[in-house]
């Protein structure tokens, strides 16, 4: 006997095999996206992304700290994600688990590899004091594809962020200095079901895909990849997926800018 989840999964599967999706979308279509900024009033930058029924809020805070020993004159980027018990009946309180850790690390690499942030400009005193940019991803409601929603939220919050002043060992948050990001990395997750590829899998679809790849593109370059889930992909499939992701991230880029 099948329980409700299984029935729903089966229905989603049948639909996709026929080239459609349960919620009426095309296979290569994102759900509705809404991005609001300035939502966290104490953050230097923030964005709330609603992707279908998934909701993610990203806040950017600046702080001052010690540089890493191997980059004494560079600022520090920290990305953290919380998948708290609010977001899903299946989540528990506690330190970030494997899912939250993967989420934050993929977003981190997307930003870091393309050098989206001008970390070299964020040194206050070489070897002693540098700016720390702390990007916190907080998942409010989990209905699938948190990766793409979080990547969008992170880059949008960073684009909106100002840099506070710093004087006499104090961070002055009422002074707003310009802070310019250099690249806009955008993630697109592509799932595979038999010979079909789908974009932006929702929670049910994440359960039924053979596998997924989260592909992060800047305008021109591929800057991070992460295969997720259990299945496998042939090399040629992957190349097609990268192309597809490029096309879709180009669409998303318009919303962000």
């Amino acid at each position: 006997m099948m329980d409700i989840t299984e029935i729903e999964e089966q229905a989603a599967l049948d639909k996709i095999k026929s080239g459609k999706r349960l919620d009426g979308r095309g296979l290569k279509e994102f759900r509705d996206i809404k991005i609001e900024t300035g939502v966290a009033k104490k953050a230097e930058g923030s964005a709330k992304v609603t992707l279908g029924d998934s909701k993610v809020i990203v806040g950017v805070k600046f702080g001052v700290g010690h540089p890493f020993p191997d980059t004494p004159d560079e600022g520090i980027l920290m990305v953290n994600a919380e998948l708290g018990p609010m977001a899903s009946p299946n989540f528990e309180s506690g330190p970030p688990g494997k899912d939250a850790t993967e989420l934050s690390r993929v977003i981190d690499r997307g930003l870091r590899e393309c050098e989206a942030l001008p970390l070299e400009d964020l040194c206050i005193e070489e070897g002693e004091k540098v700016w720390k940019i702390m990007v916190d991803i907080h998942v409010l409601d989990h209905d699938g594809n948190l990766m793409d929603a979080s990547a969008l939220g992170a880059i949008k919050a960073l684009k909106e962020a100002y840099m506070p002043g710093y004087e006499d060992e104090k961070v002055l948050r009422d002074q707003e200095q310009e802070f310019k990001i250099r690249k806009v990395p955008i993630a697109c997750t592509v799932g595979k079901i038999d010979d079909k590829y789908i974009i932006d899998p929702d929670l049910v679809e994440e359960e039924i895909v053979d596998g997924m790849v989260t592909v992060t593109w800047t305008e021109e370059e591929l800057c991070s990849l992460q295969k997720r889930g259990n299945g496998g992909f042939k090399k040629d499939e992957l190349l097609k997926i990268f192309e597809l992701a490029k096309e879709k991230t180009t669409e998303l880029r318009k919303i962000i800018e």
Partner: protein
Amino acid sequence: MSENKELLKNGKRIDGRGIEDLRDMEAEVGIFKRADGSGYFRMGNTEAVAAVFGPRELHPKHRQKPKRGILQCRYNLTPFSVEDRKRPGPSRRGKEIGKVSEGALSSIVFLEEFPTATIDVYMEVISADAGTRCVALNAASIALADAGVPMKGLISACAAGKIEDTPVLDLKGEEDKDGQVDLPIAMNAETGDITLLQMDGMTDIDEMDEMLGLAVKGCKKVAEKQREALMKTFEDSK
């Protein structure tokens, strides 16, 4: 608490409010899909969301109570809700507020209808400008209603306080920082039962009488806003 700023001038407060004025409020019900109930509440620059799950089975089983359910609260500040980023994870302050929130909300839920079960209330503060526990409770209360949990009433919360020796309602950030007393309460606005009460600062019984009076009035206004939001959802869903 010290007084180095002028917080009151000709009966007006730094943001122009009078002594008995609440900050502007916003409330929304049913904001999340996965939770059984959810709510948003804002007072001035303080805002919070809450999600309710349950009644559902309590784990581990040896914590279950045979004759009544329990209500558990988690109160959390998001890392970006405060001036200097807060490290994620439980804080001592958050644990205490979780506990007093359980005390505040348990009394209005018919827990005896859910033996062995738990109702889990998760509150997240999105931005913190004083009164966070009150705003979080206001969101939690409408989230409980949204979840369809059988309740004896609504819990409405706000703080009174004392600035420049004057009792005032609903402190905002600077007032809280430089004020003399902070007195958050939560109340069943219909019965007048005060189910959360905390106080910091030095005061006496007469002042308490006055401040409690202000806070009670404030809670009633909060209750109106909560009911309005619940009504709107109810109408929308018709």
